[in-house]
């Protein structure tokens, strides 16, 4: 994985803006930002993160590759679309943030133990296996992400909700052993593989990314 990062470093040298334009979804929009700051001011998560969208865009232009790709900010985006609606230049800001997160993950530079990233990985792993989300297994994986003790604590805190879900028939304990799934699981896997191939071809990747191939 470090390989892909090195390849990109060699290819783009110091031109991180160019790298973003070519490799990140909607990255070609970054240069349109006029630094008005309305996205940063509109962000519902604004006070809680280090780099606001407009700051990220400026950092991209300034070539701060490591800082951008290892930033927690993109992972905190809740996709409320406030910034995108208000952007005077119509930048698809939300999509760029997700594109950057995805690219950082692909290069192995995304922050470790980032809850959103961990959740995304668990969710992807969970739902692509059978074509359906196994909520019980996914919940358990998320709870026990930080170790056994913290997992038990979390389950204990949320026990009443769990009981409620069980009685409302929204939580089937048998799912722990047998997952329900979609009809054509092989077809789903083939479709996802094909999508991976198309993306790799379009973006010029040689290496199959971790966590993407089945």
């Amino acid at each position: 994985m470090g390989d892909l990062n090195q390849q990109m470093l060699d290819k783009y040298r110091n031109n991180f803006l160019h790298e973003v334009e070519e490799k990140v979804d909607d990255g070609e929009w970054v240069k349109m930002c006029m630094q008005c700051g309305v996205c940063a001011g509109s962000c519902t998560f604004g006070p809680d993160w280090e780099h606001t969208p407009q700051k990220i865009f400026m950092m991209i232009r300034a070539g701060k590759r490591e800082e951008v790709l290892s930033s927690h900010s993109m992972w905190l985006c809740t996709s409320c679309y406030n910034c995108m609606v208000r952007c005077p230049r119509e930048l698809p800001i939300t999509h760029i943030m997700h594109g950057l997160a995805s690219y950082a993950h692909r290069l192995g530079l995304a922050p470790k133990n980032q809850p959103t990233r961990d959740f995304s990985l668990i969710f992807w792993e969970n739902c692509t296996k059978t074509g359906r989300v196994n909520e019980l297994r996914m919940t358990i994986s998320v709870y026990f992400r930080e170790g056994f003790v913290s997992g038990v604590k979390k389950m204990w805190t949320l026990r009443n909700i769990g009981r409620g879900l069980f009685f409302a028939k929204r939580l089937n304990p048998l799912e722990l052993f047998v997952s329900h799934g979609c009809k054509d699981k092989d077809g789903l896997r083939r479709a996802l593989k094909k999508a991976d191939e198309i993306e790799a071809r379009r973006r010029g990747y040689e290496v199959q990314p971790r966590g993407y191939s089945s």
Partner: protein
Amino acid sequence: MAEVVATNQTILVVGGGISGMTAAIEAAECGKQVLLVEKSPTLGGRTALLYRYFPKLCHPTCGLEINLRRIKSNRNIRVLTLAEVSAISGKRGAYSATVKIAPRYVNENCTACGACAEAVSAEVLNPYNYGMNKMKAAYLPHAMAYPQRYVLDASLIGTPDADKAKASCKYGAIDLEMQEETIEIKAGAVVWATGWQPYDAAKIQPYGYDRFANVITSLEFERLADPHGPTGGKILRPSDGKEAKNIAFIQCAGSRDENHLRHCSRICCMASLKQTQYVKEAWGAEAKSTVYYIDIRAIDRFEDFYQKVQKDPTVSFLKSKVAKVTQDKSGDVILHGVDTEGYHRYANAHDLAVLAIGMQPSVAGVDIPAEIVADSSGFIESSAADSGFFGAGCATNALDVNRAVQSSTAAALRAIQVINKLARAEA
């Protein structure tokens, strides 16, 4: 009422603001016959509603007075007010226009004595103060109105107030039987000086212009500062009449925004810089103006003025497009956003927020004939090579008064060339 003599050698000027007046005067002083058609009851347009001009901070009344005098003393100009061009056909050198003239209900006998205004009790929103106060339904638009004649609002007709007005007039100037007229006129060339209108501030949802009384537009602020305005020239905020000393100016309100107006309105930066000086003039050292901006576009020679304002201790600049405006119980407006110089988040309280509202063309392309090419913002860009139509002033672009006058002089010259060619061909 309207006995208009117009021939193929007449220049028709549509719009009687500073641009239309200039084009008409320039052409008339070159000896051409001019017909100036204005939709409202008075000439002067939006210029007459400004308190002061930038950068010299002189009063628009001065320049308007000179121009009105030039119009009065020139026999080549015929002015039609309350008149609108509703259709136009023909080609360069031979246009035929349909002009609709709305009734004023007051004839030439009017001496502007004001007795009718005293007699009537009905009131209407005052459009010359952007609806911030009311005026009598028999009114003189403003002190600089030309012609200096009263107008009866159409809502008055058929009410007892109309009869009271008629009875009060010593000069027999009030004619309640006046009807709308439609006349056909000929013209060799047409100057479109249809001007501009402020962008609808309520459409900028996060700024809450439609929800908060203390969020106003820059044009309304001009009226607040003007002695003829709703507060008699005192800068008082609308919600509770409190003296507004701590004022926020929000730049690019509607302009440079793909969601609203895609062009830069060009004048708003200078307008806000100018308005900070009104605040200083009103409250001295207690004044506090904050300009929230993306970048200050004080074009070419106006840089001097910008530098002067930057040195003013009552004015501070904050580089940020405001994300959201709220209003608290005391009526103060709170501006939310991020200062992009250092990425600091702010929530600043001000007495009043002034939106430096963008300019858009009065007629957004639709009402103007096909011979004219409009740009993506609806401004007149050009006209066909063989056309006798010429744009002037803010109908062609977002311009300040100075540039609008230049643009109009240019349009007048083009129109004169059409007439001259025609005259030579006919001779």
